[in-house]
């Protein structure tokens, strides 16, 4: 019996009787990171990284039984050692390492290999079996260095300012927003939507230092926003509030913006290929570094990526999960609210 199996409820460790990022309610859930498709409501017990604790309390409910631990520390359940290693995806994101009688598995959750200035950098972990995401598992997705992208964003903002427009960046409240704040902080004030401000507060209370931002309230004047940078989640994208700003121009930061067809589909004014997921070389490099004999490929270009791995000397398998696409900042324009997570599954 393998240490880890893939079941209807999620990735399961029978020996330890716990799940990793389950999508249906379970008794004991080990959580890789705070994105909604990886951590869901209804589990009896949550085990996650120290910084993910306040995130899920803030995002899901304060009324959860959450146990946290730092990177490198170990919890043992029925002989299975559970430890966390940095995944570099967002603040608090962890790869879950499991060890039992010498057999080692690593479940990556979401990860990226480039340091983003705010999340603890990705660390490869040697293992026998590696469960990897594949959100951008196609060779056309090769990121430019984040400095290059941030310079593009900055010159876009400067340009907007010159044309007397309000720069609005659309970003996922958890992860992308903090990354933008950290890397854009400087000469201009940064105004953030409530959902982002709330998360920032929770993170700061947990000891994360973030540059100063200003919460947007009903009293915030339009003129004031024009002289700063506005960051809002995608739900605000078609809101009346945004349209009523003074000359709003919107920019989307997502790995999908690498491709013109995606950029045009979004009908935003600018698209920046800034991702919190590993690109094609990043995925390959990470997988190689684990030294794993078995690779399980989850959410993303699963079929393509596992086929490529198999043709290149790895033993890879496609795994169907219910994880979504946290880079699809912009949902399809639908009359009702449906998330892309349901779409990509």
């Amino acid at each position, binding site marked *: 019996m393998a240490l880890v199996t893939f079941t209807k409820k999620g990735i399961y460790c029978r020996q330890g009787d716990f799940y990793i990022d389950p999508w249906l309610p379970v008794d004991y859930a080990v959580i890789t990171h705070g994105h909604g498709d990886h951590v869901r409501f209804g589990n009896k017990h949550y085990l996650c990284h120290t910084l993910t604790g306040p995130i899920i309390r803030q995002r899901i409910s304060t009324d959860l039984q959450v146990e946290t631990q730092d990177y490198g520390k170990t919890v043992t359940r029925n002989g299975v050692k559970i430890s966390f290693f940095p995944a570099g995806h967002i603040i608090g994101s962890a790869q879950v390492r499991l060890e039992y009688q010498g057999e080692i598995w690593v479940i990556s959750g979401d990860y990226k290999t480039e340091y983003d200035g705010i999340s603890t950098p990705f660390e490869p972990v040697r293992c026998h079996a590696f469960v990897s995401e594949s959100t951008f598992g*196609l*060779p*056309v997705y090769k990121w*430019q260095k984040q400095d290059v992208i941030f310079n593009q964003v900055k010159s876009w903002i400067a340009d907007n300012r010159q044309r007397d427009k309000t720069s609005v960046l659309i970003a996922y409240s958890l992860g992308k927003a903090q990354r933008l704040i950290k890397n854009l902080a400087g000469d201009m004030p940064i105004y953030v939507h409530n959902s982002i401000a709330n998360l920032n507060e929770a993170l700061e209370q947990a000891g994360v230092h973030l540059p100063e931002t200003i919460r947007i309230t009903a009293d915030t004047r339009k003129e004031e926003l024009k002289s700063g940078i506005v960051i809002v989640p995608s739900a605000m994208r078609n809101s009346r509030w945004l349209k009523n700003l003074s000359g709003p121009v919107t920019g989307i930061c997502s790995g999908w913006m690498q491709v*013109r*067809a995606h950029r045009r589909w979004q009908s*935003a004014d600018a698209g920046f290929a800034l991702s919190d997921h590993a690109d094609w070389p990043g995925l390959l490099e990470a997988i190689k570094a684990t030294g794993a004999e078995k690779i399980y490929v989850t959410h993303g270009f699963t079929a393509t990526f596992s086929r490529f791995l198999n*043709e290149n000397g790895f033993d890879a398998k496609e795994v169907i999960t219910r994880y979504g696409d946290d880079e699809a900042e912009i949902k399809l324009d639908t009359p009702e609210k449906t998330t892309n997570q349901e*779409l990509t599954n």
Partner: protein
Amino acid sequence: MKRFAKLIQQLELSNKTNDKIEALVHYFNFTDDKDKVWVIALFTGKKPRRPVKAALLRQWVKELTQLPDWLFTESYHNVGDLSETIALLLPPAEQLSDHPLHQWIESLHELEGKDDEQKKQFILHAWNSLEPQERFIFNKLISGNFRIGVSNKMLVNALAKQSNTDSSQIMHSIMGKWDPYQITFQELIQGVHVNTDNSWPYPFCLAYALDTEPEKLGAPDEWQAEWKWDGIRGQIVKRAGELFIWSRGEELVTEQFPELWFLQDMLPDGTVLDGEILAAKNRQVLPFSVLQQRLNRKKISKKQLEEAPIGFFVYDLLEYQGQDYRSQPLSERRKKAEELLSALDDDSPVNLSPIISCSSWGELAALRETSRSVNSEGVMLKKRDSLYHSGRKRGDWWKWKINPYTVDTVMIYAQKGSGRRANFFTDYTFAVRDGENLITIAKAYSGLTDQEIREVNTFVTKNSLEKFGPVRTVRPELVFEIAFEGIAASKRHKAGIALRFPRILRWRKDKNVSEINTLTDLQQLLQSTLEQPGDETN
């Protein structure tokens, strides 16, 4: 080329005309004159000849990246554009350099006649010196396919603004015959070439679709109503003894229509007519499918001349006695056109497109319902005092089309889209009933809401019967109403019928597959369109 790459990026991202014009003006202000000429050429569809085949480019990329063929194909499917796929797959450039656009074009031009190895050396070297966005542009220069969402009008407005020149003069100039390898930017703006060239046409005046009740347009007697014909919009130019026939696509088609050559003797010099090239016999318009037999043919046989005779239905007079007549009111232009064509025989292939006389909007609405019986697709409304505008302008001309034909069909195949929609089945094939079988009748995509696309997607995933590459055969259950503009006999289609501009009108969740239309229904429709107008009354 960096500057040009930036321009393209700006044009692609903005969806507001003013922003695009602003970006163009900015570009024209700061760029090399030689580059400007090429940008105008590329944006108006003057393609340099393709110096290297796409298959070779693909082969070289695979050599460079060591990627298997299937992965290249999947990447292409996700990106949806070959030039871009190549640009994204290539390894990062090692020594960047910046040459102006025209230099790249000239270097590519010089590749003509060289062998593949020499071409390869040049292309690989170029790729290795360009950033991803520039590489994409460079690849586009090779393929010559530059559709970037800049209309001629937008381009002309930007040039007019930048060079302080009258926009109609520039429109004339860039629509005329010129060679980007020869002409200078100044010559192009001043229109030196069109002053000596007799062939140049005027920009067509276009109409918007009527989106309100006609009553809102005011009194009916302020308007001239005509049939809206479904043919090839064209201009006939007669200057200095020569005759030129232009199609709306700004193509010279004089050779294709010998029926109209007599106008060379009949029209006085300095005359330009706007009208519609149609299949017609005895001044009766035949269906578009008949005209189709005459399109894009180098040689026309006698049989074709007999079976698919064409005519020219004149709408307007743009130049009269060598004078630009476009700023005269329509009523005046029409009067002069009538005078000019009064000498034509009743059976001449050229005639004035008739005015529909009516005294009220209600009467016109009733007449419009009969459009199909004269093979028209509705009614045109033109303000009697309107000038002949360049391009589209709201308010003076309206097209008031009749509703399309529709047919109920069932979906039998589904295929994934490209780009962001690569995860969804968005392209569908539809069938009608043919006895016990289903027979493919149309392919269509779009027309559904995103919510519906999602539902269809779920259905397809659960009800796939077979898989051929990206195509799924699905259980024939979902009924869709397909709208289309015309119907024609076709040997290339298994059903023997081709629909024109098919699109999804709505998903008929209220119907099941036993209620869809049959091939016989469509054959009858085809037959009825082929019968001569007027036959019905017999």
